[in-house]
């Protein structure tokens, strides 16, 4: 069986399906063995019995290629399977910023409340860059990494569209 590289929230693991029966799965994650009784009870819904515990997981497609969002224990986990396709895509995009390094753009239409940085500023990871008001809520957008601001494309008071670039990094 093939081993897969899987990206989790803040670590990458090596996972492998060792044995797959009709309703059972033996799998390993970074060498740790999991023996599961697993059934797909509804489309996208799995019932798992693991070490005597009954768990229900819901799986939906995520935003990125081969990414899945798994709902378990009242939480959502984003999981991405890094296969040849994803590697190829990433190689092709090499040099371009990607994966948390991209420029800041708006996920939805809204209004710019405040711009806290200027062109040429050095910002630290997590630093608040702009505040956008959308869906009646104000949200802060943070720097995804330490970076230098290449350009600020909007100003306070502007109405913005979904997916409109707001700030670019060098």
């Amino acid at each position, binding site marked *: 069986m093939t081993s897969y590289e899987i990206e989790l929230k803040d670590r990458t693991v090596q996972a492998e399906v060792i044995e797959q029966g009709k309703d059972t799965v033996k799998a390993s994650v970074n060498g740790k063995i999991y023996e599961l009784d697993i059934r797909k009870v509804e489309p996208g819904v799995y019932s798992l019995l693991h070490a005597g515990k009954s768990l229900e997981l819901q799986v939906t497609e995520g935003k990125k290629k081969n990414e899945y969002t798994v709902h378990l224990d009242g939480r959502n986990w984003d999981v991405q399977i890094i296969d040849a396709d994803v590697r190829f895509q990433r190689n092709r995009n090499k040099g371009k910023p990607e994966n948390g390094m991209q420029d800041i753009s708006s996920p939805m239409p809204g209004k710019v409340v405040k711009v806290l940085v200027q062109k040429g500023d050095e910002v630290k990871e997590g630093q608040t860059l702009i505040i956008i008001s959308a869906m*009646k809520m104000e949200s802060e957008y943070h720097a995804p990494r330490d970076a230098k601001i290449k350009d600020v494309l909007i100003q306070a008071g502007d109405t913005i569209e979904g997916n409109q670039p707001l700030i670019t990094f060098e």
Partner: protein
Amino acid sequence: MIKKILIANRGEIALRIIRSCRELQIQTVSVYSDIDRHAMHVRLADEAYHIGPSPSAESYLKMDKILEIARRSGADAIHPGYGFLSENAEFAEKVKAAGLIFIGPSPEAIRTMGDKITARKTMIAAGVPVVPGTERVILDETDARKIVDEVGLPIMLKASAGGGGKGMRLVHTMKELMPSLRAARSEAETAFGNDAVYIERYIESPHHIEFQILGDQHDNYIHLGERECSVQRRHQKVIEETPSVLMTPELREEMGEKAIAAARSVHYEGAGTVEFLVDDKGNYFFLEMNTRLQVEHPVTEQVVGIDLVKEQIRVAQGDRLAITQKQVRQRGHSVECRIYAEDPDNNFMPSPGKVIKLREPNGPGIRVDGYVYEGFEIPIYYDPMISKLVTYGASREEAIQRMIRALDEYRIMGVKTSIPFLKRIMENRDFRDGKYNTHFIDTHQKELFPEESSETNRDTEELAAITALLEYLEDKKAKTAPSNGMVKKQSMWKEFGRKKAVTRL
């Protein structure tokens, strides 16, 4: 008698009103914007009419358009819900002028309570204690300094036309006063088109406790007890409960009387809420009066057994209140969690989108006031609230434990929700002990936003990884399954027929 009601709102509150109307056998008329054609309030109403483009300023806030539809549909009353036009005195006036019933208080009452400074003056005259401060707008910076000298630090700057935390600034030192004043003014100007700001003394470790009141057209008023709304994030309520752990029967009676005095001073009709700040010693101060149905009204309904929307409708058509203060009984305990389409792990970023899977909690003591369904796309144009999850229990402990159970049962896929965050609050020791005030979320950052490193979390994450891997392998198999370049589109019946023919079943 009211026979047909137009509901000038959308989302869960429109559904909430439709439900009471149906039980009263009153016809319902919904209005909807471009994007809301598929929304539940359209599907559930007897009649529905389009009112304009998706942005609320061009649809749900269009007074004349709404009135025109009310006339066209033959509605005799308009229920504004909360938000939108619910506290707009001009709208209430226009409804009246059109010969229709506005389900809510008089335009004068809305106007008096809507302006915070007028409201303060009215409360002082009615003998209701207010937070020490000025009753007047700050003239200039010298004036501000003079007032602060009188009131004493810390102080709170507040927008006169304010609400929802906009234009508010907490000032601890004289040095912060001027920059804060400028910021509060500009924020008030942007949010309300009015930069008038006033000063109030800041109450340390405050509780936000509000009283539900009901009034009729015959000068009868009752209160239905309190709601504790101190769990707030950026001055927005997150969790509400009743009764409040801070309350004693004596304090309840006293504050209830003051709330009624507040209502009486403006001849209040219908359902309203008087908000107070209460400190740890039980000192209480009038904060503001909301002249509409509150988001969190269900917790009161659960413990007093009264349908507030029905009461609003009865009072609006001139009926007397059905019960007296002596008949009001609070039984058991109720908690409400507001479920938002937002990502608690990413600074509460709004998360609109399509609801792919939905399973709402059920069973004893659970009430879900929501409006989304599987396949529904939560629009970007309006409030991101998905539903209000309300539990009832014989005791506070039971209501909270039931809430944890209900949050565990709740499945919403496709959008991120505040459910994990709400569960952490319910499980928090201080919350469970009832030891919390409006600073709760700020002072419990560590517990409410935990670092992910515990062993169980790792296991859970790895199980999620394995399941995703299985789904991925299945997807891949489906994609590479042998087919002659055509997408398999046969019906199950055809396949069944073919199999039957082959195997001669």
